[in-house]
């Protein structure tokens, strides 16, 4: 077992009120009774809204935060007391932090990591070359980090975190602020790392489904879902169909769906279409109006969060 938590709880002290000379605090439960296990080779997606406790869970796993109660074990050890030992086997990318030295080329940080993690010279050269090719990052590793774009910096950040070939890769919102192309090249890259154990946090369930074999959803510090991505993909979540048309809607359509919505920008929207009706719905629309464009979307995370917290599924 790479990671195992048992009834893990983390409480923070939160400021309730600020008086002139002292502050009043209240206990805030950031993580409540978290139980899960992570096996070698799993790609785990950790999803939740802002403030749901994702980063807190990651800090506990990494041993840079102490649990309030319950236990967490990383590589079968207490992460807090074995932090430096475990570090040899873990690679971390925090989307909002940087380990690269601002004034120096990314390559200098790679070289520093080579020495810190004691990677032999030839292996190092090979790995940098490989990683840089996979991430399409060959042409900016020698320029000072402060001159890099956000996406370029994130790619360099990935290389720095993976130079010692860690078994466990922890990524806390690594795609924050990246454009679609960069996001895709990073998700494709992560998909290739099948022999590594990965924890990937994001607000974006679609992205997580691409990278991960299993997904956890956190909501207000509680684990509300723990499913494989296959099961998750099968989950029937109602979709939203949006289409535009120059013509006005035929009666057949408005009769069938009285709830059809006209949006501000002139397009039409149908919500709450379940999987099995989707096909017939689409053919019905395309048959009865002249459609300029049509789009099907489902916001799984929103839906799941709304339903899971009510039902307390897991």
């Amino acid at each position: 077992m790479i990671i195992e938590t048992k009834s893990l709880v983390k409480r923070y002290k939160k400021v309730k009120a600020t008086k002139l000379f002292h502050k009043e605090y209240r206990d805030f439960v950031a993580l409540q009774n978290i139980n899960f296990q992570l096996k070698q080779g799993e790609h785990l997606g950790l999803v939740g809204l802002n403030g749901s406790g994702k980063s807190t869970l990651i800090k506990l796993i990494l041993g840079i935060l102490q649990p309030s109660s319950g236990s967490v074990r990383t590589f079968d050890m207490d992460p807090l007391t074995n932090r430096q030992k475990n570090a040899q086997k873990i690679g971390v990318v925090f989307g909002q932090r940087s380990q690269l030295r601002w004034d120096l080329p990314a390559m200098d940080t790679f070289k520093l990591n080579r020495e810190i993690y004691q990677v032999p010279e030839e292996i190092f050269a090979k790995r940098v070359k490989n990683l840089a090719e996979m991430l399409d990052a060959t042409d900016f590793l020698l320029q000072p980090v402060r001159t890099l774009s956000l996406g370029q910096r994130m790619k360099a950040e990935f290389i720095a975190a993976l130079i010692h070939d860690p078994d466990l890769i922890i990524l806390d919102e690594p795609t924050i602020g990246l454009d679609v192309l960069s996001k895709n090249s990073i998700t494709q890259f992560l998909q290739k790392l099948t022999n590594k154990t990965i924890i990937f946090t994001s607000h974006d369930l679609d992205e997580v489904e691409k990278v991960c074999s299993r997904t956890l959803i956190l909501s207000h510090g509680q684990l509300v879902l723990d499913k494989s991505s296959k099961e998750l993909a099968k989950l029937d979540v109602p979709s939203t169909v949006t289409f535009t048309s120059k013509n006005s809607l035929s009666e057949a359509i408005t009769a069938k769906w009285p709830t059809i919505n006209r949006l501000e920008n002139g397009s039409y929207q149908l919500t709450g279409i379940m999987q099995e009706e989707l096909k017939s719905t689409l053919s019905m629309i395309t048959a009865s109006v002249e459609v300029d464009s049509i789009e099907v979307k489902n916001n799984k995370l929103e839906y799941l969060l709304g339903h899971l917290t009510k039902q307390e599924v897991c």
Partner: protein
Amino acid sequence: MKYRLMLVKIGIKKGLASKYALLFWLFSILISTTVQYFLWKAVLIGKPNREFQETISYLVLMQILTVLFPKTSYELNDKVRSGDIAIDLLKPLSISTQLLWEGIGYSLVKFAIIGVVDMLIFFWFLDFKIAFSTILMVLVTAILGYFLYFELELVLGTFSFYTYSIWGITTFKEAILLVLAGNAFPANFYPSLLKKIAQYLPFQYSYGAIGTLAQHPAWNLFIKIVVIQLIYIVAFNLLFKLLFKHSANATVIQGG
């Protein structure tokens, strides 16, 4: 091992990246040295020239040390406040090791840009009359003083975990340095009580004691200073480890 060398290199590169800032620092030091020169010339009027020479060279030496010693407490404070300390904590290397060797690299650049000029001034004020043994003694105690100062800065920086801003604490430190470390003027100008107190303060062994040794070199004084420096280094190193262990576990890494 080799990672230390790499950290030193990174420190050097970082220093070189801010070489213009260091040049400006050099100019401001030259100006303040000139002011001090005339100030002490006036203060010590009617005294033998030897005393003036000793005093002014002492002050220049203190200035060299001030420039070269690391500002680790601020670095640690920044890291704690921003939460970037998480990154350093997740390396298989202690944070003090990272800060020490990178700081040495940076200090080497400061030495090359500011220290060399300052040192020429120092020798010049002494008419280039200084025994080789004295240079050796000062060099050894200055290096130990560096380590001692580094440990003190680490301990101060650790308070960031509790207060998040160590501005108050470092201001207090600056005041102690100014008055009791022999940083601003030599200890023999102190009232005797203050002199007694100063003698036992750890900062004294990063500054004043080294200056005194340069003024009145003697092997037995040298050995006494080195022994006290070593004791303090070990003591503060233990104190830092204790404090840091407690604070990094009991407190919270910010941000995320």
